[in-house]
């Protein structure tokens, strides 16, 4: 994955966020990582609302999304992204403790790229995030541009 791509992580649990960040780094992901503590924060960033930082349409992004989050949950964030013409293309990877098959079906139905369940076991959690990191750091991985090419 190109080093200019930023990884957006929506995760309300500070411990989980640190663990994800550390293990992505251990898997040689050197991209910028931005943290959002709830669903509203990441929506504000993507939809350019509110006072916080806003996304840059000339950049490329990939989103890691927790399901259970305060204010706006991950399912709603996914739904809003996939309903939006500009944001629809951004790949969204669900990374959550929720393993109910109904939720998995719903997220794929809305258009998530992948659904990962966070293992409860600490070492398995580290391994799973490192597998994700090694996948994301593949040189051949390509992401879409938010602003269509040629414009």
């Amino acid at each position, binding site marked *: 994955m190109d080093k200019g791509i930023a990884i957006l992580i929506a995760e309300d649990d500070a411990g989980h966020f640190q663990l994800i960040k550390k293990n992505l780094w251990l898997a040689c992901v050197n991209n910028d990582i931005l943290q959002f503590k709830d669903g509203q924060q990441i929506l504000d960033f993507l939809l350019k609302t509110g006072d916080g930082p806003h996304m840059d349409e000339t950049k490329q992004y990939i989103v890691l999304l927790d399901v259970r989050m305060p204010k706006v949950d991950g399912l709603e964030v996914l739904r809003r992204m996939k309903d939006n013409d500009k944001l629809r293309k951004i790949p969204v990877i669900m990374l959550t403790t929720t393993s109910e098959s109904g939720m998995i079906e719903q997220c794929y139905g809305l258009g998530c790229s992948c*659904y*990962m369940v966070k293992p409860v076991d600490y070492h398995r959690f580290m391994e799973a995030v490192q*597998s994700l990191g090694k996948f994301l750091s*593949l040189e051949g991985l*390509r992401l879409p541009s938010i602003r269509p090419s040629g414009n």
Partner: protein
Amino acid sequence: MNKDGVILIAEQDHKHFDMMKQSLLRSGVSNKILHLADGRRTLDFLSDVTQPPDGEHKSRQYILFLDVDLPEVGGMEVLEKIKADEKLSKVPIIMLTATDDPQTIDRCYELGCSTYMVKLAENDDLEESIKKIGHFLSVVEIASIE
């Protein structure tokens, strides 16, 4: 991905398919891996699995590796048709192709591919990449088709 899940590889080149299969197996993937040699067969296969079971056990979980450059029906048309099909739209599709063109990449994401991976020129690198994809697939949950 559960053990019954099936990995489909739509790839014209038999040698590439063999290499991909070996690399996935080496990464520890124990799922069934099937080869679909063109776009038409890919669509026919998937349309067949959505038919009501006729006694024969059919898996309900599939993931598809899809080349852009396929005979009969091209990879982008296959992607478009699968994502437009109510029953099949949840099947995750990983584009794996030599085509490294920004417009094709944008279009595939617009149509709903999960990821777009470019096959780089070096075969060793490709084997290594496929193994990493295999490791990643082992921690991913897949939706069942209805």
